[in-house]
């Protein structure tokens, strides 16, 4: 009798052990739940690889495994502006106006004479010409440096804003001087450049951008205290269209075709929203990240798509993406008066870098977690590298986006 009882208990114990073991194995081997929030509290962003999941992350933002990244210093000198030429060399303008070319850790000073009271710098599309604005008080003078000839030429224009053409030596500028204010274009690659008026209007605090040959974008300098608008002028059709109207703290960046824009809209006293918009002023997506468009750059990459026929051939389309530097601590931006505080250098960020698919909104990690502190400004995407000015040390860095 006792033997039977012990036997029955042993069977029951074995069954209990099998059930408990199965439950343990099932729990242990199961896929972890999708992480919901980044370790820094940056909602909408994936976690860096190896980071334990945390509750509360927004759905729909699967983490893309980060490939090995390489962040490198391009030149150990301070710069106010830079460009990458067609050979891959960096052309830097230092705070004193000296122009330096850096290639494979070799630097060459192009212009050793300082430019007094440097105000702004703009590079032509191929980095072969550098426009500098300088002068005391409101008396701004302009000069163009020819990189090949290593020579300066004064430029007699009255401009309150300017932008280089994306594909040739033309410069667009806004002039409010004289009786004929408006947008002018001057071809600085011509033997005798003559300004041509393109659009007549009178406005204050203008900004200009020229992303594609025919389209010039203009608007107002941004502040969270006042609403601004943004327009695109098509030089071929002579049509003027609004891209954004009456928006607080309006800052934006646009793709080449000017049909997709990344627009920041200030929250007034603090923070704001980051929106993807179309070329007609419509919002297509609200992004769950908080950064400024000046910390982002558009790019595109070929993506094979299955053809409609039954053959195994594939067609290739270009898939558009954004590379965005996003503050690790969202609180820094969400509690600041943007964009004013950032543009005044009152607020600094320590950024991670993410890739955002423009069509799907999917966010992938590029450079996250424990890396050198960077506060990304003026990003440029050249040959699978993200070049940028680090606002923390005012030096130019490069981030390799693929395996070298």
């Amino acid at each position: 009798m006792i033997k039977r009882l012990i036997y029955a208990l042993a069977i029951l114990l074995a069954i209990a052990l099998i059930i408990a073991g199965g439950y343990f194995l099932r729990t242990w081997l199961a896929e972890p739940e999708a992480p919901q929030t980044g370790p820094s509290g940056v909602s909408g962003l994936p976690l860096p690889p190896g980071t334990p999941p945390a509750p509360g992350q927004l759905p729909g933002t699967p983490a893309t495994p980060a490939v090995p990244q390489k962040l490198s210093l391009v030149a150990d000198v301070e710069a106010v502006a830079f460009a990458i030429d067609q050979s891959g060399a960096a052309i830097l303008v230092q705070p004193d106006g000296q122009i330096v070319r850096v290639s494979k850790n070799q630097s060459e000073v192009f212009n050793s004479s300082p430019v007094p009271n440097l105000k702004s710098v703009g590079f032509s599309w191929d980095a072969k010409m550098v426009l500098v604005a300088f002068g005391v008080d409101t008396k701004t003078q302009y000069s163009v440096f020819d990189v090949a000839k290593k020579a300066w030429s004064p430029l007699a224009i009255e401009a309150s804003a300017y932008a280089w053409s994306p594909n040739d030596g033309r410069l667009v500028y806004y002039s409010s001087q004289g009786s004929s204010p408006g947008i002018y274009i001057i071809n600085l690659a011509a033997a005798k450049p003559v300004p041509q008026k393109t659009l007549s209007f009178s406005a204050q605090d203008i900004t200009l951008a020229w992303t594609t040959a025919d389209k010039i974008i203009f608007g107002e300098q941004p502040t969270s205290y006042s609403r601004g608008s943004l327009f695109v002028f098509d030089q071929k059709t002579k049509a003027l269209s609004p891209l954004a109207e009456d928006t607080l703290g309006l800052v934006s960046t646009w793709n080449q075709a000017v049909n997709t824009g990344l627009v920041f809209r200030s929250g007034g006293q603090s923070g704001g929203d980051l929106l993807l918009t179309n070329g007609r002023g419509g919002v297509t997506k609200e992004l769950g990240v908080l950064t400024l468009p000046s910390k982002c750059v558009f790019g595109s990459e070929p993506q094979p798509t299955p053809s409609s026929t039954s053959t195994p051939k594939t067609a290739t389309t270009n898939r558009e993406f954004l590379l965005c530097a996003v503050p690790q601590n969202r609180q820094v931006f969400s509690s600041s008066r943007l964009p004013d505080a950032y543009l005044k250098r009152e607020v600094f960020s320590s950024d991670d870098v993410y890739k955002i698919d423009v069509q799907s909104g999917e966010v992938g990690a590029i450079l996250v977690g424990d890396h050198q502190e960077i506060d990304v400004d003026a990003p440029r995407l050249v040959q699978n590298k993200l070049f940028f000015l680090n606002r923390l040390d005012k030096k130019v860095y490069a981030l390799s986006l693929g395996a070298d």
Partner: protein
Amino acid sequence: MVVVAAAVANPAAAQTGGSLWLTWHTNTYAPPGFTGKALPTADSEIAASVEAISGGKVLDISKEMIRWYVDSTITEYGVGKKNINLRAPGVAGTKIILTVELPGRDDLLPKTAEVPVVRPEAVVDAPYPSGFFSGEKIVLQVHPFFFNVASLADLSSSWKINDSVPEGSANPDRVEINMAPGTADGFPVNVVVSLRNPLNTLESATKKTTLFYRR
């Protein structure tokens, strides 16, 4: 005469999609490289412009009557009066409600802009996102914003580092902070900088910030 600007939406304007574009500018000081908008402070000069945009074109409004209002009071008007100049009130911390209308054009709604009147600011350029710095020496720079001056040289500055006045610098907008060997990790450095317009005693700004030393 007090005239209140029309503020009711105009259905005709809504149908045609035409609109006025009102922009403004002030000539208060902002450092070179600042790409934001300079804001007026007390007594600043402000310039404003208007254009009409409709049907993909900038309309010719040079023959239209244009009326300008400040805080609902008509201030200027005239045929083709596309640009005006005005002066901010003598008290900062307020705002100007600037409105422009074309009474002869039913297809264009009046446009209003809020122009803030802010106090001048001193911004300490301390590029340390976490508030911690390391190294034996750092240099901090102060950026003045929105003073009624033409250049940095028109302002006077004074610094205090942990309640002590640092030795004179060649650049009064910068201060050099040297850390003594053996300074404890986490040691606080309290920075106070004041900027003043010697020609206008009411124009001044002070900024206090604290940084922490990391060994």
